[in-house]
């Protein structure tokens, strides 16, 4: 019997092995294609930034770092780096603190979580950013409000506060209440419960909300596009304005600076909270 079975089984096994090999190859091709599409424009910007031509060229023709020297030697551009960082810092601190307070207000009523009221706060998320930017700039001009870092930050709150409130609210609603009750039973007052029980449990989501607000402000090309004066132009808006009269390679070098800042943010987020947590998705099962 075994002698008869061996030859009939061998081709089937070989076929199965071949199918598995083909499956593995397809898998690698699929993964490579997906990653390539995601990273393609980013890699292309980096390539173009070292090209020895004034126009966009990828792969680069020649190799030079003079575009970096030129863009980083440009006081306007360097000032924009400072503006963007200072702005994003102010916006994220204000958004997280107001968002945290509001999240407590919406979740800790006697009748539990008040979703209906909190949904009103989410309304601005449905509005186009250019419409918001135009409206804020228009209001500032009609009422002669000076445009500076603080008024620009105030304008950007429309983009970040709703996100921060929502994110933190979900986390507060999920806190186990027993821990707080136990603390109260052991004699902790409301302030002690707040600082030593509630805040430590929310550290992760507060950091995530701060990072998201920071990035939204840093990348904003809606509100900051309108609300600016020559001294408060953020990096992305500066790059948008440059496209009218600067060559491709200089734009690519400026874009690469922004890209590297983005990479640093990705690494920091990955390290501090994890991308999954910051975006609310699972990378693994």
């Amino acid at each position, binding site marked *: 019997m075994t002698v008869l079975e061996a030859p009939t089984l061998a081709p089937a096994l070989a076929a199965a092995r071949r199918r598995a090999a083909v499956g593995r190859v397809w898998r690698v091709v699929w993964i490579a294609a*997906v*990653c390539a599409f*995601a*990273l*393609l*424009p980013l*890699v*292309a*910007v980096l390539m173009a930034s070292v090209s020895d031509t004034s*126009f*966009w*060229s*990828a*792969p680069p023709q020649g190799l030079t770092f003079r575009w970096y020297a030129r863009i980083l030697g440009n006081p306007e551009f360097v000032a924009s780096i400072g503006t963007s960082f200072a702005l994003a810092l102010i916006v994220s601190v204000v958004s997280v603190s107001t968002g945290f*307070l*509001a999240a*407590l*207000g*919406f979740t*800790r*009523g*006697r009748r539990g979580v008040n979703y209906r009221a909190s949904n009103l*706060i989410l309304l601005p998320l*449905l*509005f*186009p950013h*250019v*419409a*918001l930017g*135009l*409206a*804020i700039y*228009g*209001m500032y001009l*009609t009422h002669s409000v000076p445009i500076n870092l603080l008024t620009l930050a105030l304008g950007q*709150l*429309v983009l970040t506060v*709703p996100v921060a409130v929502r994110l933190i609210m979900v986390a507060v609603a999920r806190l186990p209440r027993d821990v707080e009750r136990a603390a109260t039973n052991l004699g902790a007052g409301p302030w002690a419960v707040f600082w030593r029980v509630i805040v430590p449990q929310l550290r992760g989501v507060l950091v995530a909300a701060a990072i998201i607000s920071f990035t939204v402000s840093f*990348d904003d*090309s809606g509100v900051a*596009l309108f609300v600016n004066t020559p001294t408060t132009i953020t990096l*992305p808006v500066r*790059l*948008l304005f440059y*496209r009218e009269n600067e060559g491709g390679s200089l734009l*690519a070098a400026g*874009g*690469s600076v922004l*890209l590297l800042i*983005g990479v640093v943010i990705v690494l920091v*987020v*990955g390290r501090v909270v994890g*991308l999954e947590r910051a*975006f*609310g*998705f*699972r*990378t*693994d*099962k």
Partner: protein
Amino acid sequence: MTISRRVRLLLIAPAVVALVLSFVLPMLSDLRLSLSGYDDIMGVQDTVTLDQYQAIFQDSTYLDAWLLTLRIAILSGLLTTLLGALISFGLWRLGGRTRSVVSTVVIAPLLVSGVVRAYGWIAVMGPAGLLPQLTGKLGLGEVTILYNEPAMVIGFVHALLPYAILILLASFDRIDPTLLRAAANIGARPAQAVRLVVLPLVYPGIFASVLLTFVMASAAYAVPAILGGARQVTAATAIFQEQNVYLNWPAAAALALSLAVGTLLIMVAYQALTRRTTSRVEGHA
């Protein structure tokens, strides 16, 4: 810790003040502006008129901008969701460490400035970019895709893909994997199981992804400004042009409000249309 009503109102107050200043008052001011008259020589007139609204729905340049915006947003929403669904399905089947690496690569570009990513496509698809050089080598002639509708759609698909994947991956993850085994046990081939079991369960995710990406594409500024060039005017770039170049504030305000109200109406209508399918699936899940 339950909080009294008075304290809760105090907690919510800062976020409400921030949004009144950055959203409610600006939008009201925008509404007033959109009802003002405009004269080429005298500038903004202090009258109340519907002239601007009449113009933006009758003048052929504005009509072209609305139609272009609609076309691009629909196409971008559908293509992004299709690609996002394919990638999410692959990630869902993949699992394990590979999944976490690939999903990180695909999601991380969200943290990189949208302006830079749009510029990247010039280095990919513009003259002297990667695409024309590749097609040139393949003997297809130097193909460039720039300053036209396909260029904008490609830019949008790349910009919005992470959002689609975040939504769709979450939707796939909610599916009980034993359902697939059950389908196989009662004789379904893999393709049948996907079509009859998996697909209906991710419909809500697909609907949500189409809506979100459509709305974002209809209002974004950076992609059409960079990849559309001067001749492709969308609603968002028209708003900026009217205000920044022609200083026609009333027209810009009317455009912005119409865009905002238009997207809101589309969202409401869309959700009414898809509610039946969505609630049927969620009732089962």
